[in-house]
């Protein structure tokens, strides 16, 4: 019995392969059924996102398990063959598999380090598997642990903090100037892709009024309709400045469109209400000198990029702390995982019973006083026979059932029923000292 992971991600496979292997939510139940159809697979979860497709499984035999999962992945698209997929796949087993799962959940394996979506996707994948009853005691524990590790990483490190994209950086800055962005108005001068993306982020953060000035009026109208915004003629942008709290300029003009004099007038008309200019055009379209004016804040593309890079560097530093947390957590998980082995469980159970028997005999001897040799032997024989008879069926069941479908559950139940955690972990530390 072993835990394995077979999969591919943005580093090992091109998007052409990833999109062929991807499994949509609608097809997930079917895929899980197909995966766990082979008796070697005891439990399985499939994680499929745009950057990765991974199968996490508990298998009876590691080598056979790998083969079955590889075939399963290759079979998801008729145009793929085992040979064409294999070079893109990575395989992990036992503690490496656990480590990989924890790293994925904590977003250490993501394309954008620390991005928060992966945890939600992992939870969804787990939920699908629960729904289709393809998880058991091991993957349940492993995924719950992975989720809690990810949360620990999130709270104890700054890996998910601060913006690592230009448009997010702009939103964060706006929040530091205006507080909540509800009720604020944004004007886009130029309606390119970048402006659209930034506008989307602003709307997502509560901005409800968007004005769009663009040289091509049709494009302005088209973009405005997606945000419920207001398109205006390009020449009219200067009159709109007074009403705008945030101005995003990506007009691509060869000269300054917004001059110091214009902004001076605007800020007086706005009665000193702060105004935030974002100039992502190259060459710049806003006179950099306006940053010297009170209550005017100007960030150009380099400023934003610089802030993104600093944040990215912070995340990389924080990733080291996160790896440390993961190492810690693997140790505790691996201990539990090993305890699911039947042999130490049987030994522990016998030890526990023997210890109880010995201590009870001792108590009895204290009460009865000196016993003759025959009496002592009779007492020994009686107690030993009770213990053995009592343990006979549980031990046989453990030995026989451990390789069955419910084996892990029986092990876990035994451990709980007889409170063997203590005995099992004590065994380990003693062995270490040897």
């Amino acid at each position, binding site marked *: 019995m072993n835990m394995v992971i077979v999969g591919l991600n943005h580093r090992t496979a091109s998007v052409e392969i990833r999109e062929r292997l991807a499994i949509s939510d609608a097809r997930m139940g079917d895929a899980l059924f197909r995966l766990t159809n082979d008796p070697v697979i005891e439990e399985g979860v499939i994680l499929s996102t745009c950057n990765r497709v991974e199968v996490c499984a508990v298998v009876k035999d590691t080598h056979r398990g790998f083969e079955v999962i590889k075939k399963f992945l290759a079979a998801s698209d008729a145009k793929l063959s085992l040979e064409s997929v294999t070079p893109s796949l990575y395989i992990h087993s036992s503690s490496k598999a656990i480590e990989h799962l924890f790293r994925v959940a904590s977003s250490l394996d993501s394309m954008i380090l620390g991005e928060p979506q992966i945890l939600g996707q992992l939870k969804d994948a787990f939920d699908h598997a629960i729904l289709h009853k393809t998880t058991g005691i091991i993957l349940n524990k492993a995924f719950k642990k992975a989720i809690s590790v990810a949360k620990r990483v999130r709270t104890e490190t700054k890996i998910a903090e601060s913006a690592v994209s230009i448009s997010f950086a702009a939103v964060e800055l706006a929040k530091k*100037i205006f507080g909540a962005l509800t009720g604020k108005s944004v004007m886009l001068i130029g309606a390119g892709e970048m402006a659209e993306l930034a506008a989307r982020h602003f709307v997502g953060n509560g901005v409800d009024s968007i004005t769009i000035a663009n040289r091509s009026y049709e494009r302005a109208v088209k973009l405005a309709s997606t945000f419920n915004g207001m398109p205006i003629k390009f020449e009219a942008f200067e009159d709109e400045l007074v009403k705008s709290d945030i101005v995003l300029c990506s007009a691509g003009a060869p000269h300054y469109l917004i001059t110091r004099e214009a902004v001076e007038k605007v800020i007086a008309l*706005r009665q000193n*209400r702060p105004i935030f200019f974002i100039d992502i055009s190259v060459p710049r379209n806003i006179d950099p000198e306006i940053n010297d004016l009170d*209550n005017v804040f100007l960030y150009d593309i380099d400023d934003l990029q610089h802030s993104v890079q600093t944040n990215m560097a912070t995340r990389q530093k924080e990733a080291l702390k996160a790896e440390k947390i993961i190492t810690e957590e693997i140790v505790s998980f691996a201990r539990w995982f090993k305890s699911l082995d039947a042999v130490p469980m049987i030994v522990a159970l016998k030890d526990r019973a023997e210890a109880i028997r010995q201590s009870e005999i001792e108590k009895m001897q204290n009460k009865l006083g000196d016993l003759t040799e025959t009496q002592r032997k009779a007492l020994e024989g009686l107690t030993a026979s009770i213990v053995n008879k009592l343990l006979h069926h549980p031990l046989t069941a453990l030995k026989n059932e451990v390789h069955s479908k419910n084996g892990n559950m029986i092990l876990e139940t035994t451990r709980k029923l007889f409170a063997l955690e203590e005995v099992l972990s004590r065994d380990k530390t003693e062995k270490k000292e040897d």
Partner: protein
Amino acid sequence: MHNVLFFKATLLFYFLGTALFLLNLWDSRSERAEGDKPSWPQRFALFATAAGFVFHTIALGIQLKEDGYIPLADLQEAVSFFSWAIVLVFFWIEIRYHLYILGSFILPLAFLSLISVSALPSEVTTLNSTLLNTWFGIHTILSVLGIVAFSIAFLAGIIYLIQDRFLKSKQLNSLYSRLPSLDLLDQWNKKAILFGFPLLTLGIISGALWSQYTEGTLWGKNDSKQALSLGVWSFYLLVLHGRINIGWRAKKAARLAIIGFVGVIFIFVSLKY
């Protein structure tokens, strides 16, 4: 004189609180989100401040009991009450808004004001019975509370200028990320002055009534203090007018709150003479 002992304990703990809060300025951990527990260094700072506040309250209580009147008769007592009230405001802000970072600004102010007056010799040992007038009590409590509000506006102004500097110079460091938004600071500035102004107004009126009662004239002998108070009062009136009618907000409002507070300090100092 148990209260001397308690005052010393207060000073000690406010000092500790100040030191820990200032150290926290360099703590790169982020400000905690709503519902999160404070980190250990933050808890130490909060604990020291809370301990200082408890001792301070006890000391003031003892003084009230021993003297039989509200301990606000001289500069020393007024400042002591001021620093007690401003720490109380800090706890309110911390509990209500989780803006722990403000401790790094409020605590130094509380500690500095307390230590500066404790260096002065206590002069009022035999208190003129005229001081025990009700009007006097009302006058001093209202005035000090007004001043507490103005000092909050002052601190909001200082933090505003710091945050404005960070944004302008594009130094987006960890302190920047922990300080509140410019808008929030401007709101506090406004609210604090709106709150403090009527208190000061009533404080001045009750002071004049007290003067009428004791000296038979609304404009007492201590006219330098009264002139100063009126000056500061007019200044804040102007600031409020400017904010509401002319748009003196944001950076300008921050600067004005700082200037106003300098005047407030002069009122305090003039109490001495």
